[in-house]
C-alpha cells in the first residue's frame, strides 16, 4: 500500500457534515454529502431487491461514514437485520477518520477491517484478507464508496477480486495437474503439494515419471560418448514431454504445476499455453547450482522460487517478470509429532544427535568433528572412511520420508546443516531454508540449524529453533541443550506451533492460488462460470424433463456441478448411453473443443 497519503478537511453546504480529501480526491460530495449518501444507500437497497438478500454487506471505504449510516437507517426502516462490515484500505486514513469525524457509533456497530495493517506482501496477505473478511462464508453483497476506487485503486482491485474469487471459485471446480520429475528431492515436495491440494479439495492429479528413471540411468550403458549419452537423455526427456501432452489432451486441466526438474520443455509449455492451460513452475533448487531455470522461467505463466534478491535480479535480466517467492513448508498430516512411542523405533531411530540427509562435502567436514557425541547419521552418498562411517546408519541406505519423521521425533537434537559443495563447513551466504527446517519443527523436533538469510521474520532464534554460527558454536549448543531438556522441549514446542500456524503446504497453496487467481482473474472466472451451476437450482428447473432430472439427481450430494463433472461420471458408467447422457457428453465435448479453439 502507498503510505504517502495526504488529507484535507473540506467544508460543505451542510455544516454538520464536512467532507475531506485524500491525496487531492474528494471523498464525499462538497455540496450535500448526506443527500449523496442517501442516494447511494437507495442504490444498494435496489441491488438487494434485484439480487436477493445477502447474509452481509461489505462496504469498501469507511469515509466519514455518512453512506454507511444512511444504509443502516434504510435497512432498519425495512426491519432488515443484514450485517454491514467496512473495509478501510489504510491505517493512516482510518486514524484520520477516527480523529476528525463522528464515527464512534459506527465503530461500535461495525466490524472494520483495515487492509494495510499487514500488507507487506499483497498475495501472502490476500489469504488473510479473505479469511478476515470471511469472504467464503455465506452470500455477500460487495459495494464501495465510489471515490475510494480512485483513491485506493490497488486495494480496491485486490479486495474486489478476492470477493469475486470467493463467489465463483471453489477448489473442486479447479483442475490441477502436478508434474513430477524422474527423481530427486523435489518429487517428495511434489507429493506433499499433491496431498495438500487434495486436502484443500482441489481436483488434482499427479503425473509420476519416476518409472523413467531406470531408463534414464541406463542410457549410459549404450555408449561411453558423453555427447551421445546426453543426446539420448534429451530424447527421453522429449518423450516424457510428449507423454505429458498426451495426458492433458483429452482432459485438459486448468493449471499444470511443474516441480523442479520435471519435463517442462519449451515446446510443451508453449503447447499448454495454446491449449489455454495455465502453467506454474516451483523451482525448489539453488539457482546458482542448477541453472536450467533460465530456459524455463520465461516460458511459464508463474515461476515460484525459494530464493529472491539475487535470483530476482537474474530473472529480471533474462526478461522474466512472472516470478514469486514461495518458500518450502511442512505437511502437518504427515510431519507430525509421534504421540505413542514405539520402543523398537525409538531404539533404532533415536539418539542424542542426528542428521538425516545426503553426504555433501561440507557436512562430512563438520560431522567429522562431532563423532564424540551419540550421533546418528542417516542417508546416502556418505562415501567416507573412518571415523565418520561409524555414525552412518543402515549402511548408508536412503531413508524413506516415514523414517525421517521417526528420526526427527526420536532424536533429542536434530542437526540441520544446509548443504554446500564448495564451502568447508558453513555457507556464510546461505539464503533459502531447506525442507528439513519445516519438517523437523512440524514433527516437534528440536533443531540446531546453520544461519540462513531468509530465516529472519520466519523463525526466531532461541524460540522456534537454535542457530549455530560455527562448528565450535554447534558443539557448545549440543552440549548445552542435551543438558537442558526442559528448555529444549519448550523451543521444540514453540517451533512446532510457529510452523503449523504459518508454514504449511496448504498455506503455500493458498498463496500460490491467490497469485494465480488474482493475476488471471477474468480468464479463470470466465472459464469456471461457464462450468458451474447450482445443483438444487438445476434439479428444480429440470423437473419437467424426467430423464434429465434423474441424471442430475445422481449429483444431488454435491453443492454445484460442472458439465465436465457430469461427463466424467457418465463416462465411468457402463452400458448404453441414454439420450440425456449422450446430450450432456456432446455438450461437454463441443464446449471443450470450442474452449480450446478460443484459448479460454
Amino acid at each position, binding site marked *: 500500500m502507498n503510505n504517502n497519503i495526504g488529507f484535507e478537511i473540506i467544508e460543505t453546504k451542510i455544516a454538520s457534515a464536512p467532507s475531506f480529501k485524500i491525496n487531492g480526491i474528494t471523498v464525499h460530495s462538497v455540496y450535500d454529502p448526506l443527500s449523496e449518501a442517501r442516494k447511494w444507500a437507495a442504490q444498494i437497497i435496489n441491488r438487494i431487491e434485484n439480487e436477493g438478500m445477502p447474509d452481509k454487506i461489505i462496504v469498501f471505504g469507511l469515509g466519514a461514514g455518512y453512506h454507511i449510516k444512511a444504509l443502516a437507517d434504510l435497512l432498519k426502516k425495512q426491519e432488515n437485520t443484514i450485517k454491514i462490515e467496512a473495509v478501510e484500505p489504510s491505517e493512516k486514513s482510518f486514524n484520520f477518520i477516527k480523529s476528525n469525524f463522528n464515527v464512534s457509533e459506527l465503530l461500535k456497530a461495525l466490524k472494520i477491517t483495515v487492509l494495510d495493517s499487514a500488507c507487506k506482501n499483497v498475495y501472502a496477505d490476500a489469504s488473510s484478507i479473505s479469511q478476515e473478511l470471511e469472504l467464503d462464508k455465506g452470500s455477500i453483497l460487495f459495494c464501495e464508496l465510489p471515490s475510494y476506487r480512485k483513491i485506493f485503486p490497488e486495494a480496491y482491485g485486490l479486495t474486489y477480486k478476492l470477493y469475486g474469487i470467493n463467489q465463483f471459485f471453489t477448489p473442486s471446480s479447479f483442475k490441477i495437474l502436478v508434474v513430477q520429475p524422474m527423481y530427486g528431492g523435489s518429487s517428495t515436495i511434489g507429493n506433499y503439494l499433491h496431498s495438500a491440494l487434495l486436502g484443500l479439495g482441489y481436483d488434482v492429479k499427479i503425473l509420476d515419471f519416476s518409472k523413467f528413471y531406470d531408463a534414464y540411468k541406463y542410457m549410459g550403458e549404450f555408449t561411453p560418448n558423453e555427447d551421445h549419452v546426453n543426446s539420448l537423455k534429451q530424447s527421453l526427456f522429449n518423450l516424457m514431454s510428449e507423454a505429458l501432452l498426451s495426458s492433458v489432451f*483429452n482432459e485438459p486441466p486448468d493449471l499444470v504445476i511443474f516441480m523442479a526438474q520435471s519435463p517442462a520443455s519449451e515446446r510443451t509449455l508453449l503447447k499448454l499455453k495454446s491449449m489455454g492451460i495455465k502453467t506454474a513452475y516451483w523451482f525448489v533448487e539453488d539457482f546458482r547450482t542448477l541453472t536450467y531455470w533460465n530456459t524455463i522461467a520465461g516460458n511459464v505463466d508463474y515461476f515460484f522460487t525459494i530464493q529472491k534478491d539475487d535470483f530476482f535480479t537474474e530473472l529480471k535480466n533474462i526478461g522474466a517478470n512472472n516470478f514469486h517467492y514461495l518458500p518450502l513448508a511442512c505437511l502437518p498430516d504427515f510431519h507430525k509429532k509421534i504421540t505413542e512411542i514405539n520402543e523398537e523405533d525409538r531404539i533404532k531411530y533415536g539418539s542424542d544427535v542426528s542428521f538425516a540427509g545426503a553426504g555433501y562435502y561440507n557436512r562430512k567436514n563438520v560431522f567429522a568433528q562431532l563423532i564424540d557425541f551419540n550421533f546418528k547419521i542417516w542417508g546416502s552418498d556418505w562415501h567416507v572412511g573412518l571415523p565418520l562411517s561409524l555414525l552412518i546408519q543402515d549402511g548408508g541406505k536412503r531413508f524413506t520420508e516415514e523414517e525421517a519423521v521417526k528420526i526427527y521425533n526420536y532424536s533429542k537434537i536434530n542437526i540441520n546443516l544446509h548443504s554446500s559443495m564448495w564451502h568447508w563447513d558453513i555457507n556464510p551466504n546461505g539464503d533459502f531454508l531447506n525442507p528439513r527446517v519445516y519438517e523437523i519443527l512440524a514433527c516437534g523436533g528440536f533443531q540446531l540449524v546453520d544461519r540462513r538469510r531468509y530465516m529472519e521474520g520466519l523463525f526466531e532464534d532461541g524460540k522456534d529453533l537454535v542457530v549455530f554460527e560455527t562448528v565450535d558454536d554447534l558443539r557448545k549448543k549440543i552440549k548445552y541443550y542435551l543438558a537442558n531438556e526442559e528448555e529444549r522441549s519448550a523451543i521444540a514446542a514453540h517451533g512446532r506451533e510457529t510452523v503449523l500456524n504459518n508454514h504449511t503446504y496448504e498455506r503455500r497453496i493458498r498463496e500460490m492460488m491467490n497469485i494465480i487467481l488474482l493475476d488471471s482473474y477474468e480468464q479463470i472466472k470466465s472459464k469456471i*462460470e*461457464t*462450468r*458451474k*451451476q447450482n445443483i438444487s*437450482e*438445476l434439479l*428444480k*428447473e*429440470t423437473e*419437467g*424433463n424426467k430423464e*434429465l432430472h434423474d441424471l442430475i439427481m445422481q449429483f444431488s450430494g454435491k453443492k454445484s*456441478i*460442472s*458439465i465436465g463433472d*457430469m461427463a466424467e461420471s*457418465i*463416462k*465411468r*458408467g*457402463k*452400458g*448404453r*448411453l441414454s*439420450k*440425456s*447422457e*449422450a*446430450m*450432456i*457428453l*456432446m*455438450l461437454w*465435448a*463441443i*464446449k471443450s*473443443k*470450442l474452449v480450446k479453439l478460443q484459448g479460454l
Partner: protein
Amino acid sequence: MGDFFQSIPLIDASASPKGGNGAKNIALLIDESIYNIKNIFNDGINFFTYESLLKLSGISAESLNEFDFFLSDFTSKYKLAVNLNYDFANSLFINLFKEQKRGFIALCKSPKNAESIHRSGAANYLFNIVKNRSLNRINIVDIYSLIGSEKPAEIKTSYNIINLKKQAKGTLLRICISIGATHPKRVWQSEKYADLIKLLSENLNCEIILVGTADESSAAEEIKKNLQSGTDINLIDLTGKTSLYELIYLIKDFDLIIASDTGTLHVSQIFNVPSVSVYTGNANFYETGPHIENSYVIYSKIECYPCMQNEPCRYNYACKNDINPEDVFNLALMQFIKNKKHKHFKKHEIKLSDVKKRVISNENKGNFSVAVCKHLDSIHFYPLYKKTITKNEFASEIFKFCWLGVLSKNSVKIDKNNVLRYTDKYYTIDKSELNSLIKEIYFMKDVFENARKSYIDKKFIDIDKDDFFYFEKFKEAVKSLGLNYGYFKLASDYFIDELNFSGVEKSFNDIILLLDSATDILKSNSSSNNNSNNSI
C-alpha cells in the same frame, strides 16, 4: 476442406432420385472455417456448425432444456444420419438421431473414446487403415460413400447439388498451382515450383495462377524470386487474396491443377479439372489421390513413403527431392494432349507417346513413380506401364477388390475378368511368390472357416468359460496371422474390432467373404497363367 469435398459424391448421391435416396433435405454439420462454401450449393443442402447450434452460456437448466428440445426436433427430421468423422462430439450427435445411423456412433459409456465409439463395416475399415496405410488401396472418396451408402462413389463430371458451373474459357491455358498443404511434409519445394513454372511458360501459351492461404504468401514470394527476370512468364499470385468461395469459383474453370495433397486439389476434382499431383511425406495417393479418371500422381519410390504424419522425418524430406519439375511438366503435357489442348502449345509437334516414353524413361532412371487414376466401378490407381510387384503389394491389390465387396455388404459384385485384365495389364509378379500367396490365403481361409464352425455353428451365444478362453486364444492367433502375413494385418485388425461392434457372425462372414473372393480371383489368375504359360 479436402475431406469435405471428398464426400461430395456421397452427398450428391444421397440427393439423387436415381439410385440414391432422393433426399430433398440434406443437413451438413461442418467446421466453422469452411462454412462460407454453402453458397456454392443448391437449396435443399443446409449447413450447420456447432457454434450455430449451441449457446455457450454454461450449463443451466434453461440451456439444457433448450438443447434437449432442439435435438428432439432436429433429429426426428432425418431418415438417415451419417458421421464420417472419428470425432467424439460428432459420434455423440449421431447417436441422438432416431432413424437410420451410419458411420462412427458413440453408443456406450466408457472412459476411452475408442471403446465408446461404435464403428462397423466401412467405418471400421477407415479406422484401421490409419495404422495400416500401406495396405489400403481404396480411395477415401469410395470409403466415405461406402460408409454412407454402402456402395462405392459415383464419380460425375458435374454434380447436381452444386450450383456453380464451368464457364467458357479465354485464349490462354489457365494452370493453377496450389503451393501449400496443411503439413510441411506434403509441401513441394519452392525452387522446384519455380523451375516447373519456367517449363510451362516456355512451352505453353498459358497463364499460371498461384493459389494458397495467406500463410503461403511467403512461399509464393520465394517462387517469384527464383524466376529470373526477363523470362516471359504470365504469373498471377493469388495466395492469401481470395476467400474460399472466390477460390472455388476460380478453380472450376482451370485447365489444369498442379498441387500436392491439399484441399484445393480435392475441390478441383468436383469440377472435373485435370490434375497432376505431387504426393510426398504422409500423403498416400491410394487413399487421398485425385479421383477424376486419368489424374496423374507422381511420388517417390523411397522406402519410407508414405510415412505417418506425426513421425519426424529422418531423411531430410528426401521424398520431395526425388520428384523433378521436368517430370511434373511432362505429366502436365500428357494431360493437355489427352484433353486436346494442342493449340496452346508453342511447339505444336508434341506426341503423347513421345512424352509418355520420356516419363517412363525417367522413371526407370530415377527414384520416382507415376500412378494414373482409373475407374472400374470404383477409384483405382495404376502405374503408367507394367511393373513387377511384390507379393504383399499384389495381395493388397487383389484385396482392394475383395474389400469393396465386403464393405458394400456384397452388393458390389467383383467382375473377376475385369480385375484380372487390369492386374495382368499393369502388374507382374514372380510365379513362386504368386503360388506362395495363393497357398497362404487358402490357409487363412481354412483357419477362419474352421473357426466359424466352432464359434458360430455351435451357437456361440451362451459363452461358457472354456469357450471364452479359447476364443480369446483364437483372437490372439488372428493377431499373429496379421503380424506374420503383413498383407493380412489390415484384415486381422478389422476382424478383431468388428467382433466388438458387429458380433461374431458378421465378423467371420466378412473375413471369409474377403478371403473367398481373393481365392476366387487368384484361382482364375493361376489357371489363366497355366494356360498362357506366362507369369503374371
